[in-house]
């Protein structure tokens, strides 16, 4: 009985999940597409689990809604004043009341147990091969690679009138953050000013950057996303340009990542940290 139920559930969930790849973004990029009605395609082990779990949840919830709607439709027809002129006097039924208290508890326990497993999986701290440090700023992201000789750069929104053909509006940044695929990456997050949130839907990563403290999570990008750009947006109201600090990750092979690090170190090396500080102080004054 339980196995059968599980089979039906996972079959139904399978239908929903199979819709996932249908929502691969335009140009093979990992972002949402027109009229999308489901989660973005999962690009990390955590996202695989969350998308599947959400599929199961949605099946259970849809069934509950259909059940209640069905009851309401039946009641509206069968017990309308026309069809049932004399109301019954029933106001208690212990069995029924116990049933509708106990049954939801079983359903909820059935949801909570896998949910907590996914939660602990997403929090698991696997032996990370590299670290990416993310600092939220009003209104751009700063990325640092402490294991790559502390390579540091800012990633700033590209406004509509500066877009090149093919670049998606509202999501394009000047410097993408490069990450190797099939690599456990430790993500450290903090903020230089207010609370931001570094969120990548297809990686199931969503964590606040809080000033004065550091948060940690992890991710691992699937191999098949080599050469693809994975997009996300700031997900905590952080002031005027909250909607205009997108995140763009370029997923690359480990070899290409090593090459990129060399190039990037040359490119961003000219940034004098002292000059940087002064520039930021000045910009901080202007924006306030």
């Amino acid at each position, binding site marked *: 009985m339980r196995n059968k139920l599980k089979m039906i559930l996972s079959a139904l969930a399978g239908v929903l999940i199979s819709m996932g790849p249908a929502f691969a973004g335009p140009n093979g990029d990992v972002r949402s597409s027109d009229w999308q009605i489901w989660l973005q395609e999962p690009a990390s082990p955590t996202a695989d689990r969350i998308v599947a779990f959400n599929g199961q949840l949605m099946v259970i919830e849809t069934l509950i809604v259909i059940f209640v709607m069905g009851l309401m439709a039946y009641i509206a027809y069968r017990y309308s004043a026309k069809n049932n002129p004399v109301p019954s006097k029933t106001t208690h039924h212990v069995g029924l009341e116990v049933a509708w208290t106990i049954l939801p508890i079983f359903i909820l326990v059935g949801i909570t147990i896998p949910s907590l497993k996914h939660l602990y999986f997403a929090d698991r701290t696997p032996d990370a091969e590299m670290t990416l440090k993310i600092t939220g700023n009003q209104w751009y992201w700063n990325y640092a690679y402490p294991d790559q000789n502390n390579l540091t750069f800012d990633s700033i929104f590209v406004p509509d009138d500066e877009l090149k053909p093919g670049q998606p509006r509202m999501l394009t940044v000047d410097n993408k953050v490069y990450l190797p695929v099939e690599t456990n990456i430790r993500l450290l997050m903090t903020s230089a000013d207010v609370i931001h949130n570094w969120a990548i839907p297809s990686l199931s990563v969503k964590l606040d950057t809080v000033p004065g403290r550091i948060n940690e999570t992890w991710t691992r990008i699937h191999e098949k996303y080599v050469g693809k750009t994975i997009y996300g947006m700031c997900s905590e109201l952080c002031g005027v340009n909250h909607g205009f600090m997108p995140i763009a990750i370029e997923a690359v092979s480990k070899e290409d990542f090593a090459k990129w690090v060399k190039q990037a170190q040359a490119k961003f090396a000219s940034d004098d940290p002292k000059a940087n500080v002064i520039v930021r102080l000045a910009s*901080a004054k202007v924006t306030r």
Partner: protein
Amino acid sequence: MANVRQKNAKTAVVLFSVVAGMIGLAFASVPLYRIFCQTTGLAGTPSIRSQAPEKATDIDFKVRFDANVNTELAWKFKPLQKEITLKLGEERLAFYEATNLSDKTITGSAVFNVTPLKIGQYFVKIDCFCFTEQALRPGETVQMPVSFYVDPAIYEDKNTRDVKTITLSYTFYPVKDEQKVSAVRPSATPGNKG
């Protein structure tokens, strides 16, 4: 009627004192939250003890170091080592370096936490530059030490056993109230626990 009035007044007094109590609780939550975080290690709050256990284990463990400076503070601040490999229970010393980039003496103080957040109680600081405020003369560079160990109990707790690496992070902020600043310390040199 008079009876009801008295009763009403009595009930109202009780309710007003509940309101007052809840306001008091809101303010009491400030120290309570701090104490709660310190005793349970919640939100990655490290423990503070006076000395490390006498015997270290032989389990390897990594501690990484991270540094941040608030935009209002014209300092450069970085760890002098990216990471340390140590044994659980072994006391170690690590250094950070701060440089005052401005032409004024500036005082800063550091806030800190460790990640993963769940291991706060197992990361133990014995002494740290962050316990006091730091004043830097114009252009001055100082090295600031922190001594710590990782409690071997981390390996016995099934929730934290999977953790092999801890990141220790500091953020320096300017001290706003200049009156409270202690004199420029002569002790901010390697080897001295500040």
